């Protein structure tokens, strides 16, 4: 009885969470506003659906993004520092401004020489994800299992993979691990599509995006809190740039050790944080999702990856041993892939950037640092022709645009048919 009551309460709570608007969600958890800089929150779904009757997991196919890392360039830290330091030397900073300058120095100190690299938290995220994968699907990680891990050529991807593999080796010392990071795999791990790249921000899209972002460009309150002279702000401070730079650092702080000592979120009001998020979120939508403004094709940049996932699964099903394939790449790849798969509401196609919040399209739900997709396959035995699978996005079960009588499970044949057709139609219109 208690169990039933508890599950009812949990269900109501879960519905409550679902019903939250994104603005509310961000207010409740400011970290969400960081979009791709959000540190991995871990699974919110604590209990997964039980396996389909009579079947058991035998194969996991995964794509994951590198863990929490520092910003890519010295400039990300130095530019805002220089702006504030110059003002400070002229006596133009408020007490808060001076304190922000101090905090910036601390933050830069940690990131210095490690631009773009994995932070200790990033390494930890990868280990924990691997740990949960093994704990949730022990049938797949037997002494007979083979694990094939591949990472793109980026250092942070490679180290993310190595952290995951270390954890795996710790828990399953007899699993046969193959790990590699080679240019040979970039065609699917880090596909670059010049045609799609060019289409991203054509002149019409840029104009529409800029018009949308316009309402987020009022930074006067923030500027006046940092500088003590409005004339100085007007003449010497590019407030739009400085706001973006500070927000970018604020967003990434959650991935850094120094976050135990400093925050930047006190510099911004809830509305300002939301505004910054809205601008960033729309940018991600335009560049990586089915945005109608630039042709609605961007997610197809991950067609090689999706095809590889399908082909690998088809091959692996023929084996009678459990198998795991892990792939480590970029956040841009996972966002596009999630859109291409139309997971939950990520297939949204619109030209109305203002509707994204209302329609629940929030990139942070797809690609926090260490974001990952896991396809978990089930069968009765190697002769079972009706292979079922489910998809976990960031370790939570998700929906695909396919029919199923056994949610969250889908028939692999339905998946193949639907997505191969989708890819073929795109490639040969």
């Amino acid at each position, binding site marked *: 009885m208690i169990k039933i009551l508890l599950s009812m309460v949990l269900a109501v709570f879960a519905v409550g969470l679902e019903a939250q608007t994104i603005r509310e969600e961000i207010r409740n958890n400011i970290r969400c506003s960081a979009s791709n800089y959000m540190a991995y929150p871990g699974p919110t779904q604590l209990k997964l659906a039980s396996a389909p009757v009579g079947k058991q997991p035998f194969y996991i196919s995964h794509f994951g993004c590198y863990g929490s890392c520092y910003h890519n360039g010295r400039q990300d830290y130095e530019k805002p520092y220089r702006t504030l330091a110059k003002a400070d030397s002229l006596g133009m900073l408020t007490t808060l401004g001076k304190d922000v300058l101090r905090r910036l120095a601390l933050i830069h100190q940690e990131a210095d*020489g*490690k631009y773009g690299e994995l932070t200790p938290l990033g390494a930890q995220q990868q280990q924990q994800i691997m740990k949960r994968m093994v704990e949730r699907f022990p049938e797949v990680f037997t002494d007979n299992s083979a694990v094939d891990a591949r990472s793109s050529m980026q*250092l942070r991807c*490679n180290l993310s993979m190595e952290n995951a593999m270390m954890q795996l*080796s*710790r828990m399953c*010392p007899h699993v046969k691990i193959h790990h590699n*990071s080679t240019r040979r795999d970039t065609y699917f791990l880090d596909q670059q599509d010049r045609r799609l790249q060019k289409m991203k921000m054509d002149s019409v899209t840029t104009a529409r995006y800029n018009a949308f972002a316009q309402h987020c460009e009022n930074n006067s309150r923030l500027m006046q809190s940092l500088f003590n002279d409005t004339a100085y702000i007007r003449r010497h401070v590019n407030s739009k740039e400085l706001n973006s730079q500070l927000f970018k650092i604020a967003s990434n702080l959650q991935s850094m050790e120094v976050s135990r000592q400093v925050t930047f979120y006190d510099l911004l009001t809830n509305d300002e944080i939301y505004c910054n998020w809205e601008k960033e979120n729309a940018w991600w939508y335009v560049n990586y999702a089915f945005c109608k403004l630039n042709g609605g094709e961007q997610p197809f940049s991950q067609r090689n990856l999706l095809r590889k996932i399908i082909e690998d699964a088809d091959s692996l099903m023929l084996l009678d041993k459990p198998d795991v394939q892990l792939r480590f790449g970029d956040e841009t790849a996972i966002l596009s892939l999630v859109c291409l798969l139309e997971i939950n509401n990520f297939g949204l196609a619109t030209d109305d950037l203002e509707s994204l919040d209302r329609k629940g399209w929030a990139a942070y739900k797809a690609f926090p640092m260490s974001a990952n997709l896991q396809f978990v396959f089930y069968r009765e035995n190697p002769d079972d022709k009706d292979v079922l699978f489910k998809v976990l996005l960031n370790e939570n079960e998700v929906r695909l645009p396919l029919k199923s009588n056994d949610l969250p499970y889908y028939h692999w044949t339905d998946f193949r048919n639907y997505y191969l057709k989708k890819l073929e139609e795109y490639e040969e219109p």
Partner: protein
Amino acid sequence: MRNHRFLLVILLTVCGACWSVNVAQSAFEMIQRDRNLSASNYCIYPDSALAPLTPAPEGKHPFYISHYGRHGSRYLSSRKGYDIPYNYLKRADSLGLLTPTGQFVLTEMRHIIEDSEGRWGDLSGLGKRQHRQIACRMMERFPEVFKGHAFIDAKSTVVNRCVLSMGSAVQQLVALNPDLDVTMKASQQDMWYMNHQDTMLRNRMTTPETTKAYDAFCEPLISNHRLMELLFVNPDSARKVVSENWLNYYLLKAGLIQQNTRMGERSQLVDLFSYEDCHCFWLRENAWWYFNYGPSLLNGGEQPFTQRYLLRKIINEADSLMRKDLHGASLRFGHETVILPLICLLGINGFDFQTENLADLENHGWWACLVFPMASNVQFVFYRENLADKDIVFKVLLNEQEATLPIPTDIAPYYHWRDFREYYLKKIDDYEASRH
């Protein structure tokens, strides 16, 4: 006397590394047993039974290992090394100058290039196995260092093959002891000592003196008329479109690196070359490494000091660790261009031998191939009675064999850490003070 002792060390090293059952008297003899051993920095790790270790000094036990290892077996770094012989052969083929053997070699080069395409510089499967096995033996030989929640501070240069080497070693360690407390790092922040680039010393590598001496040394070693006869129907015509010297050099080099990849079992390129050819190649390579990374007097004898930061870091980290009640290992993964000068700087097994005469190297046992095969490594293993023990002793293993240092000791193969610190810190300080 010193020379005899020195030679003995070399012979024991070769023997211990099981590169041959018998003791090699000369590099030529070594090559006669296996032509692949002429590959210099492309040699694979001598992964085989090891000579037994000296028991721990009485009352002491190992508590810390400080290590620097080269990445494991890899593919060729760029296609240039294959393109040179391939393009020569292709050009000769278009003029109808290839013999059936020449045609065969052209096809083989094509297969090799296809196999390497997209894998330039990648760690091979063998490279990963080498690091797993080295880690496994390290743990088996010094279980006290790796017991319980021992710390493992693993660092790699930012090159992918080094990260994968580190990952392979770490996977093996945690498979054997899941309680290990491991951190892995590969960061630009550590490159100042993990792979230090010294512009001043680099600019002094090649001087008119080194060029003159090296050219003169190589002069009798570079041609290969037999190979020309083998590959071309008319060698004289072929010489108009093919450089005999470079074809000889790059074709053998292409053949020798295959031992590091799956192609090793398929490729027969090395069979085109006689033991004498391989020995000539070995001599050239050895001399090249000597004046570029060794203590050659031709260019001032200072090149090994490129690794002064690494040595200082090894000393500082060991000093800090000794004051703590901790046990574990600092593992560093990098390159042969680091480990070779480091070994020379340390004077391990006589690798601080200085000469102006490149022809002296073989007889004096200055064989770079003994230092830096793929996955080569140096391990400092530290021993103490307890935390209060002020007389910390250690030994050095070069490629897992006990090695000698040029400092006095009453407990060989162990040395007193305080003697080491004093000697090497002074050596580095003196160099830095004299640097201009």
